[in-house]
């Protein structure tokens, strides 16, 4: 069974692992904004996507994630790609900047449709990579601490941010445990002749039922036991809590935060100022010189 699931924390010692999770979440959001900035001309889109791609690939390398594994994650995106292409091809466009791709029953399809689908795809890919970097380099617990920290302002208006954070922590904590359960039950049912991979639709349905029912039962038992164990140790959601592991925001974190913000600002600037493709960009450079 593949227990090396996507989005799992992988322990290494890169600078990304050492970064403060709050800074990391901030950088992630800011870089996502950058990736999602619209640009007017296709050339500019290509250039900026290239820049973002290089940047994120660098981060991937730094966090010891294998590019191959990421590419395999794209496999699950192919349905999306097909869907996007169909949508964009079927959407009639009045203003097109690229030549005609083909004509189908009096319906003209421009290369714009493909470029648009490609752009969305690249954005999605970059976004997935960014979030994978976050989850692969941050321990789930640190992640929830950071989330709780971001929810602090809501605490002032009576939002139970600690309870929410605790729920998220527990949910994250039990993902591997439940995956283990899945694994164990699948093995047990396979021994009873269930085929999870092949078989007709009806057989597959029964196979899934034979997995889901025991999984629910054991999850309910587990949550019941967990609740009892927490209560036995005097857990009170309203109590003021201290933390064993403190988060430290160092000057390096500040530096990365500023750097990421800088990159985002650059992207936003390029997007807002509407450079008109390569020509004007070079033009600008010559002007500057």
């Amino acid at each position, binding site marked *: 069974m593949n*227990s*090396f699931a996507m989005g799992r924390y*992988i*322990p*290494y010692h890169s600078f990304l692992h050492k970064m403060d999770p709050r800074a990391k979440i901030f950088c992630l959001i800011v870089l996502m904004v950058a990736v999602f900035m619209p640009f007017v001309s296709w050339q500019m889109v290509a250039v900026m996507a290239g820049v973002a791609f290089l940047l994120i690939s660098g981060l991937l390398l730094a966090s010891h994630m294998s590019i191959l594994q990421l590419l395999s994650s794209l496999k699950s995106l192919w349905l999306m790609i097909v869907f996007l292409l169909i949508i964009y091809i079927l959407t009639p466009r009045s203003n097109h900047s690229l030549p005609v791709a083909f004509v189908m029953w009096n319906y003209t399809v421009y290369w714009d449709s493909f470029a648009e689908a490609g752009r969305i795809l690249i954005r999605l890919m970059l976004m997935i990579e960014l979030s994978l970097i976050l989850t692969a380099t941050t321990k789930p617990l640190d992640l929830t601490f950071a989330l709780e920290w971001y929810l602090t302002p809501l605490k002032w208006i009576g939002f139970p941010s600690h309870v929410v954070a605790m729920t998220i922590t527990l949910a994250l904590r039990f993902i591997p445990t439940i995956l283990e*359960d899945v694994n*164990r*039950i699948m*093995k*047990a*049912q*396979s*021994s*009873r*002749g*269930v*085929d999870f991979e092949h078989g007709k639709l009806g057989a597959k349905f029964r196979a899934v*039922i*034979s997995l889901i*029912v*025991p999984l629910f*039962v*054991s999850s309910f038992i587990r949550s019941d036991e967990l609740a009892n164990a927490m209560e036995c140790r005097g857990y009170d959601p309203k109590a003021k809590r201290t933390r064993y592991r403190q988060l430290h925001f160092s000057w390096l974190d500040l530096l990365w935060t500023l750097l990421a913000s800088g990159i985002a600002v650059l992207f936003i600037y390029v997007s807002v100022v509407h450079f008109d493709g390569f020509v004007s960009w070079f033009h600008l450079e010559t002007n500057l010189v």
Partner: protein
Amino acid sequence: MPINFSNVFYVYNPKSPFQYEALRNVNLTLDEGKFIALVGRTGSGKSTLISHLNALLHPTSGEVVIDDFINAADKRKRSRDVRGLRKKVGLVFQFPEYQLFEETVEKDVAFGPKNFGLGNQEALKQAHEALQVVGLDPTFYERSPFELSGGEKRKVAIAGILAIRPTVLIVDEPTAGLDPRAAEETMALFQKIHSEGTTIILVTHDMNLVLHYAEDVVVMENGEIALHCTPGELFGRDLSPYSLEVPDIYRFARDLQRFGLKIDTSKLHGVEDLALAIKEAYPHE
């Protein structure tokens, strides 16, 4: 149905920080029709080993031959008929009660036979027979497995495997979490199945069970086979390197030996044997 492991290695999560070598160069032959105990400390590779017998895991290198089924690292050499293998080798996992899912006991027990191609009637017939073997009477047939007690659930789950009628039965810690009486009943059940010709492989931490029931014992240590001998030979040795406990009867017999009673420990299997040995050894007036 002979079982043979040759040079079997198994690595979990290869080429990642979670890499873990669970089996290291395992060479093992298990004879047909025997009652074999598989012992070793937690994490020594027992569960990984038995998973190979049901083709739930494939070796990273080496091969396992179960009768005519080949479970090899090389995909081309591997046999295709996994279903046939699983019909012959029944595997009862630890805490098997967690695999119950049907609305009624008889349906759950009949689930296995049905998967192996039996019709509804026939599957139910085999289910009823298996339930009778584990000692659950017809009043249980229509009940929901989720409303039974822990021991009864365990029996239903074991019946679910027995209904498939395997020729090799592997049980992983069948007595864990059962009260002493239920544990004894469960073991007596396996003894009975064994006497009818089924090979039994029992994974356990309880050396009393090993001494009482097993004909052969395999000791695992760090993914390797440390010993393969009879329980008598095993308990005659120093057990400290394997972190195994000495069975109660042996401990008692050794205490008696220290007080000068001549007892041959190699023939002890149960309390009766010990009583007999004491009677013989006791100096007659």
